[in-house]
């Protein structure tokens, strides 16, 4: 699989990254290296290996439906660049 210029731009847009025209080739090369590396894994023989869904093999880790209030809004908001009326203030979104 070859990473195209369009794909780099698309991924950059999805990731909200601002990349320059002269950086595209470098990113394409880096991503290509990663894909090639992952491709090695695709060639591993997994015929006798059971399918997994993640790196953790256990299942059904649940919580009881019981309220525990955190109860400290000031701490939650303390790193907000701006706040108003107990809310995060951000640039206007429509």
């Amino acid at each position: 699989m070859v990473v195209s210029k369009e794909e780099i731009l698309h991924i950059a847009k999805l990731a909200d990254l601002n990349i320059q025209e002269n950086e595209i080739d470098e990113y394409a090369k880096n991503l290509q290296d990663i894909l090639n590396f992952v491709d090695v894994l695709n060639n591993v023989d997994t015929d006798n290996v059971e399918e997994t869904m993640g790196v953790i093999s256990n299942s059904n880790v649940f919580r009881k439906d019981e309220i525990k209030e955190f109860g400290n809004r000031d701490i939650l908001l303390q790193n907000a660049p701006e706040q108003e009326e107990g809310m995060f203030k951000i640039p206007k979104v429509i």
Partner: protein
Amino acid sequence: MSREDYEIVIGLEVHSELSTKTKIFCSCPTEFGGEPNTHCCPVCMAMPGTLPVLNEKVVEYAIKAGLATNCEIASISKNDRKNYFYPDLPKAYQISQYDMPLCEHGYVEIEVGGEKKKIGLTRIHIEEDAGKLNHDDYGRGSLVDLNRAGVPLIEIVSEPDLRSSEEVDLYLKKLKSILEYIEVSDCKMQEGSLRADVNVSVRKKGQKEFGTRTEMKNMNSFKSIVRAIDYEAERQIEVLEDGGKIDQETLRWDDVSGKTFPMRDKEDAQDYRYFPDPDLVAIKISEEMKENIRKSLPEMPESRKERYINEYKLPEYDSNILISSKYFSDLFEGATKVCNNAKAVSNWIMTDITKELNEKELEPSDIPFTADELGNLVILIDKGTISSSIAKKVLDEMFKEPRDPQKIIEEKGWVQISDEGAIKEIVLKIIEANPQSVADFKAGKDKAVGFLVGQAMKETKGKANPQMLNKMFLEELNK
């Protein structure tokens, strides 16, 4: 070609907030409202290093919804991340389910023009709700409240089986009623706990392939959904008739102008890059767990309807209205148990209570009084303690300030006059004051009695027993 040559195809994605006490991945309360950001903690605010832990009730409720809609329940399921940037989504991804939802291949049955129709359900999956953006009127910025972020939702995805806005309305009402019956969601529309994304396309009748569809997101009123579908189908047909083509796009429905408008620019085709959430583990559902949940399902509307027709001898029409909402149905059964007069209770619900709800734009779940209180009201009428016109005033009072009807009529002095002496006194007084009506009666106009009874009711502010009045007027006039 005309409108009749086209068929409308609609599919719905319904989001319903689950009525668990806590959020899906943390122990914050889900209660609606509250001061901004007070139902929050580091987990639902996406602070670095925090980890989600799944609420077991969310899994149980979603399976309940699946079983009640004839779905197959997965034996193994998982959570995935859906990635996108928006300020109401603090993690920049929503934890949802992608290729292994909890429930699949179900259906909901609706009745269209007397015929039963199955609407297929593709899937039901669990996910978290986003926060709320408040827009500052002065235009200086937006304010983020994350109380709702992490509230559990189920998304119920239908097959494109719906063919008219009427079918959509029936389907939504049925779905809402099912979710209420199994008590997994309170379905309060005005609080946004039931919302739908609506996909609409049109095609020529007889054509096999679907037309290109448009999507209207986040609609929370059945009435708007019906209007939006009718408008959008009409618009698409016009475009096609003029030789144009439909763009697959997301539209915004504007209730005021009654039109749809494009929402996002089309280049931003959605690409959510789903992948399994590595912070969460697999969900395995055993046969035993499934069976236990199945056993916990309450009696469903169809079975209640049968009972109302057979046990209480109610007409099918009445039964259908009563089962349309769990709140109506529970109110009916509770009140009937108290007063033993199913027909009377049913009539109160179908007429005066429904009227009151419509006037105040309330839903059955908002009825403030108890089934016992309604039952007691019916008893007061049946015993002749109050007339039915007074009963209406008592009902009004029960809506305003719910309390026992007996107490209301005592406080207001509304007890019906059933004392013969007192009735006779009124009758004589009215006869004396209305010589013309008496003459009319003597001349053979039987209707004059009705007028006199009416005058007597007016005189007593509706408190006199109308049957006794009628009887006594006839006695006196025929003397």
